[in-house]
């Protein structure tokens, strides 16, 4: 294609390779995204922070509710966030029982639950909880950065959050949880 030299002009050479470079960056970026194991957990940022103040009413009549003061009693607590309507909670129940059997202090926070349903759930799945607080509007859940059920937090004797476990605790994870509990006390 011939052009009068006066009006002809070219794009700088580096600019011509720019699209390819940008595209290569895009491919690298999404390839990294595809290869990374998918992880939709949203970890709480409250690890290492003191448990916020809260006081939950008793979720079942035969047990006290849960407040911040109950957790900062010099011993490490396992705070299990669960609900009777949550299927994986039932799946992790044996592991919670096992943890209790090995000396862990376990407190529960029941999310959006009816006392009757909860009583049934405890009768069916075992009842290792010392206290169960009822969180009907996810207030404590939001305050500690938890986004679902089940989740389990380790709170040390001073009431500091030490660990968050997202999802159900599997049998092989029990020793790890125990070790972390020991570290926290």
């Amino acid at each position, binding site marked *: *294609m011939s*052009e009068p030299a006066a*009006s*002809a*002009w*070219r*794009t700088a*050479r580096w600019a*011509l*390779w720019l*699209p*390819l470079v940008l*595209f*290569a960056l*895009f*491919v690298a*970026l*999404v*390839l*990294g*995204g*595809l290869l*990374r194991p*998918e992880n*939709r957990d*949203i970890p709480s940022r409250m690890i290492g922070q003191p448990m916020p103040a809260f006081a939950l009413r008793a979720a079942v009549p035969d047990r006290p509710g849960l407040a911040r003061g109950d957790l900062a009693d010099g011993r490490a607590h396992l705070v299990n966030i669960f609900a009777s309507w949550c299927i994986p909670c039932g799946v992790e129940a044996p592991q919670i029982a096992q943890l209790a059997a090995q000396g862990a202090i376990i407190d529960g926070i029941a999310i959006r639950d009816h006392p009757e349903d909860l009583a049934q759930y405890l009768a069916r799945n075992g009842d290792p909880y010392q206290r169960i607080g009822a969180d009907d509007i996810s207030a404590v859940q939001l305050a500690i950065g938890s986004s679902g059920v089940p989740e389990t937090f380790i709170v040390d004797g001073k009431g500091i959050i030490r660990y968050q476990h997202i999802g159900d605790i599997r049998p092989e994870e029990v020793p790890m949880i125990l070790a972390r509990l020991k570290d926290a006390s």
Partner: protein
Amino acid sequence: MLAEFGLAALWLAAALAALQLLGGAMAVRDPDNALGAAVRPVAVVQGLLVAIAFAALVALFGQTDLSVKLVAENSHSAKPLIYKLAGTWGNHEGSMLLWVTVMGLAGGFVALVERRLPEATMRATLAGQAFVSLGFYGFLLFASNPFARLSPPPAEGQGLNPLLQDPGLAFHPPTLYLGYVGLSIAFSFAIGALVTREVGPAFARTMRPWVLGAWIFLTLGITAGSYWAYYDLGWGGWWFWDPVENASLMPWLAATALLHSCSVLAARNALRAWTVMLGVVAFSMSMIGTFLVRSGILTSVHAFAVDPRRGTFILALLAINIGSALVLFALRAATVTEGERFAVTSREGALVFNNVMLSSILGIVLIGTLYPLFTEAFGEKVSVGPPYFNPMTAIFVVPMLLVLAVGPLLRWRRDRLARVQLSLLPPLVVSAGALVAVLALGVRPGLPMVGLVLAPGLAVASMMPLRGRHLRRLPLAVWGMVVAHAGIAVALFGMACDSAFSTEKLVAAHIGDVVAVGPWQVTLSGIEPVAGANWTALEGELLVRYEGGDAIRMTPQARSFWAPPQNTTVSALHTRWNGQLYTVLGEETEDGRWQLRLWWKPFVPLIWGGGFLVALGGVLALAGRVLADLRRIVVRDKIAWRRLRQGRRA
């Protein structure tokens, strides 16, 4: 039998695509190669064969042949026929088959009718089309065969996602696909032009109608998609800057830029390398969009048929296709000069500005959409949403709209603003009036306010190119531009009104309660169970009155599908000239009241009305171009015929 027949047609089409690529490549090296002459007919037959394969799949879905795995997994015998047919593309394999079908048909159509470019460029173009198609054929045949059988066939199918069981949504994917994949033609033209170095006004004039066609479908697809999201999601929002929405917006932005740069290239032989680049980018955005949607790499409300493994395959495909096109561009574009220069104040100047702004918006949308992926590589999760996209795109949208008001009035090459200042007066006056009105109404400063002030002026400005012209003799293409630009103003006004004036009411109402929302009085008069072919629902009966006028009956539903089991809300909308009442029935509360969500959205339908006007503008422009071409062909044939007769007489 039909499934095997379809598969055979697909294999044949794939083989022909290979032949088309080979023939095109040979023709580039040796123009007299015999295979070169076969490229056009092969492209036509390939298009027909893949269309036959697609028709076979549609037929299988139509008769719910459960021995075909895809049908068993995505259909159900108790579904209305229209949704059985729509099930064809409501899944991964079917939608990929639709993709190659559109590519094949578009290629065949180009091969059949396009005669304006040098034959060598045409062959290279068709080879490019075959090159891209081949990847998708391979994907279908080796990794996602839509015709695979299931033995033994199940007694019943698993059904189609109820959210897709909506008359509008059923045809949304094919519309968008015609746009997405139609841009493959622009891509192939760009490849062809780069191969033969024939980048000039003829290239732009040839490419323009094809881009325009794809762009019309994209515009319609996005407009309709936004409307369906609006009534389907049940929360009154019409654009969420969700990754899937962005994936459809990006090719549209690129195609819009391409349309305008084509005009510069066609009229003034400038912006050559840039136009070629946009041709590549537009289709690349279609493929990237498809990849983002299909791989599930970004979470979306509109996600369906997501599969990361297939995502990897699509990524490989697009890396090969786009990568090789960009290498070709980098190597060849250096020999393509950019052509004529021009003054800033000129039609080209305005169009270049428009291109820079559209490309920058595209850049912002792309960066914002992908950014969460980037931070995740560093172990941080972030969300990028409306609070980022709205102001950041506005940085470019507002100047672009201002130039849109002036650009069409300017002359090519060089002009003076003083010459057009008389035409700018009416829009300025109207905008000033709008500003006074907006201030009087107490609209708070912000983007909606900018939109409310800008839109009326823009609407008037978009009409100004008609001033002093003989309306009946005005080319259709000019009408198209005027209508499309006016459509932008109309849509903008609707968006701004929705943001500035919408009122929302969330209430729990007993039967008989009256609720006021905006100028409306809404009475919940009853709740009734109703049933459809594959669902049951609770239907609320609302009697609504506008400013105490006659009662209008509205019936929002809470619907439960049983195949597959799923609950959806079906909102009820009432449209008036000045807005829309949007009603949703929620759940029953413990004390026997019913949750109602009500919105009064003044002028909100203008958003989609504007979108359709934009598409209509495209249709007018396309009709104008095609008619002009046809007229030219007729004249040429007449001259040829006369010569022939004269020759005979002599």
